[in-house]
């Protein structure tokens, strides 16, 4: 069964800590994404990557960075966690377009991060 795995389901961190959220996919997908999900705001794109060592900012990149050293792994980094980064974080991967067909994203099951 193909999968996107996020390393932690729940995480509690202190303000100012450096936080790593890990995401691994086993589908050989080129494209990977990090979203943040908040009630009433839906999913908002933080960063994405279309290739190893490549990264691009999404709509809300401030306070975050990413790392993609290997194709299967895409890490989200909170350099100095703040309480307004308390949220659900969702990782997704995608094959991209295959001719005129797009399979959509495969999502991980999310990490609920609380910053205290």
């Amino acid at each position: 069964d193909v999968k996107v795995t996020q390393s932690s389901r729940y995480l509690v961190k202190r303000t100012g800590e450096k936080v790593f959220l890990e995401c691994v996919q086993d589908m050989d997908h080129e494209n990977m994404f990090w979203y943040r999900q908040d009630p009433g705001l839906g999913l908002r794109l933080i960063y994405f990557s279309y290739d190893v060592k490549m990264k691009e900012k999404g709509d809300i990149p401030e306070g975050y960075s990413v790392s993609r050293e290997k194709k299967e792994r895409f890490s989200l980094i909170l350099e100095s966690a703040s309480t307004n980064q308390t949220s659900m974080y969702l990782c997704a991967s995608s094959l991209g377009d295959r001719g005129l067909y797009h399979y959509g994203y495969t999502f991980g099951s999310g990490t609920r991060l609380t910053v205290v």
Partner: protein
Amino acid sequence: AQTVTQSQPEMSVQEAETVTLSCTYDTSESDYYLFWYKQPPSRQMILVIRQEAYKQQNATENRFSVNFQKAAKSFSLKISDSQLGDAAMYFCAYKEGRDDKIIFGKGTRLHILP
């Protein structure tokens, strides 16, 4: 910029009845995809149905179907014979043809009443 609007934050439907979730989007592109995703309490996002903009025929997947009105930029989801397992947050989503970024609406929480 493209936007996706879901005007119903919450809806309820009686088990076995039919419910329609609304979605509108804004784009100047002609080549794009639309999706409905389901997020149950387990938090796992599941793709329910997809629609390619170039296809005039509405997509269907078992009890789930869409009403795609390209000129009106409307993409509603119809769930027939609602079941308790359909209770979830539903997200409408848009993807431009030449890009792989997906833009999500704010979601509609669907309650199924037994």
